[in-house]
């Protein structure tokens, strides 16, 4: 294993400290509970929105903390759910008169931690809302999940709820909005390689030199099948087809299209993939009104891609277009 790492046990806190140092005055860090939050936040101005899942998916979700996005995140170790006390302390720290919303992906560990934290917080008189994202169409159950997994579609829930919260939406409205995003977003990924968590020191699964995993999960969970590598266009065709038919999307729909790199894929390749995805949207009568090409939800250094489609209405379109600032988008 060759990685930029010191003591693997300190990998996550060192990343968090680096992020704080790179954004002086904008972010704060509670080391004891691994909570990162907006320095300029006045929790009573809006419903604060938090997230906390395993690390290793950056920029999801710590680097989505910023104005118009998340207000705090409390991640666990690489590919490990946050401990309950991180989630509980995060809810307490973000407690506001209007309540606090958490958005998590549908993984057993994450859900469990936040549900328990929610119960504890409610016993303290804190109002807590929950949105669970399960946009991955690849498999119904997996090693980490009952039901579908949550992947890059989560970004759209953060973006929409973040903007709506800034506009004064109530906790109940945000829960309904997050669920609306989840109801209208679908994703699927493909891996060209495995990845290696720093503390594990070896790849989480084996993939042959000429093999791909179709429908891979962001912790390397098995997808639909193993296949031989094929052309970029053929790969996009397969995952687009699965995503398109699942909702199902229909000719005339206005959509946001995301081509998300899983961590080890060059941006050049992502645009090769986007080209085909945009052509397929056009061919199927979908109007791409917003597009996203880059890394949003990764799996360490895994080479691979996921494709996400979100069906838009006027409300979602406006919320996605609203300005936002976060640590990784500084120009």
């Amino acid at each position, binding site marked *: 294993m060759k990685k930029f790492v010191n003591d693997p046990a300190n990998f996550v806190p060192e990343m968090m400290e680096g992020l704080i140092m790179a954004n002086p005055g904008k972010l704060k860090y509670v080391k004891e509970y691994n909570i990162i939050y907006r320095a300029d936040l006045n929790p009573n101005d809006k419903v604060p929105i938090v997230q906390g899942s395993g690390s290793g998916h950056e920029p999801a979700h710590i680097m989505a903390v910023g104005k118009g996005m998340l207000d705090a995140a409390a991640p666990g170790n690489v590919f490990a759910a946050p401990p309950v*006390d991180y989630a509980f302390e995060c809810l307490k720290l973000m407690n506001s008169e209007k309540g606090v919303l958490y958005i998590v992906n549908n993984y057993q560990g994450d859900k*469990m931690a936040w549900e*328990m934290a929610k119960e504890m917080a409610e016993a303290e008189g804190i109002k807590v809302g929950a949105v669970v994202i399960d946009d991955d169409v690849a498999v119904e159950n997996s090693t980490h999940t009952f039901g579908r997994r949550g992947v890059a579609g989560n970004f759209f829930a953060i973006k929409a709820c973040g903007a709506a919260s800034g506009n004064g939406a109530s906790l109940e409205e945000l829960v309904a909005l997050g669920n609306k995003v989840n109801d209208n977003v679908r994703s699927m990924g493909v891996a060209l390689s495995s990845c290696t968590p720093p503390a594990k020191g070896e790849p989480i699964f084996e993939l042959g030199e000429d093999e791909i995993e179709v429908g891979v999960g962001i912790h390397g969970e098995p997808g639909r099948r193993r296949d031989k590598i094929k052309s970029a266009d053929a790969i996009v065709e397969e995952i687009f087809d699965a995503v398109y038919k699942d909702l199902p999307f229909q000719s005339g729909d206005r959509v946001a299209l995301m081509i998300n790199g899983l961590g080890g894929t060059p941006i050049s390749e992502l645009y090769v993939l986007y080209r085909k995805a945009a052509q397929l949207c056009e061919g199927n009568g979908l109007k791409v009104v917003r597009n996203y090409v880059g890394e949003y939800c990764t799996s360490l250094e895994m080479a691979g891609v996921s494709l996400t489609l979100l069906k838009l209405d006027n409300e979602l379109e406006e919320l996605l277009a609203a300005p936002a600032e976060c640590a990784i988008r500084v120009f």
Partner: protein
Amino acid sequence: MKTFDLHDVEAVVKSIANTAIANEKYFSDLDAAAGDADFGVSLATGFKVVLDKWEEYDRSSINAFLLKVSMVITGNVGGSSGPLWGTAFMRAGIKAKGKEEISLLDVASMMRSAIEGIMARGGAKVGDKTLIDGLIPVAEVFEQHAQDKDHTGVIAMATKAAEDAVETTKDWVAKRGRQSFTGERSAGTPDPGIVAIATIMKNLETVGQE
């Protein structure tokens, strides 16, 4: 009526932890008969951490203490048992909120809330042959006799009820949890979770007498 303070609650938690650790092999062997043989190890590993951190817990109230313990259990007991057992302690802690001392009736309502929490978290129902079927008879004894018996009497009756539950549920087919994977094969084998409840109660008899 006798009430119990944080000191007593600590003694109960310590006894449960010691029971889990002392019965590591016994619980795992039971689990091997119709499950995946890791229940005893999971439970013991987690409760060892509970004792390792013993001096660190917030002792400002029964509520705070039980919540801290619940988080350690959730994070350190392996598999699905962690969140389930953690939820039980968490629910008990939430019920004790605002109380410096608790009565046997309070204990009954803490147990009832713990049972509801486990069912909500894990999706098990009454009769699925999980630890729920061991806990309910125990809670019923506390509910029915909190006011007409002292705590040693209640614990003795609850222990008997838990031991009876091991026998009555033995021949059931597990519908949820570790044994359910083996379906019909689970009939005839006691559920390790129910046995764990009976063993914990048995050891609490000694604590109750002190």
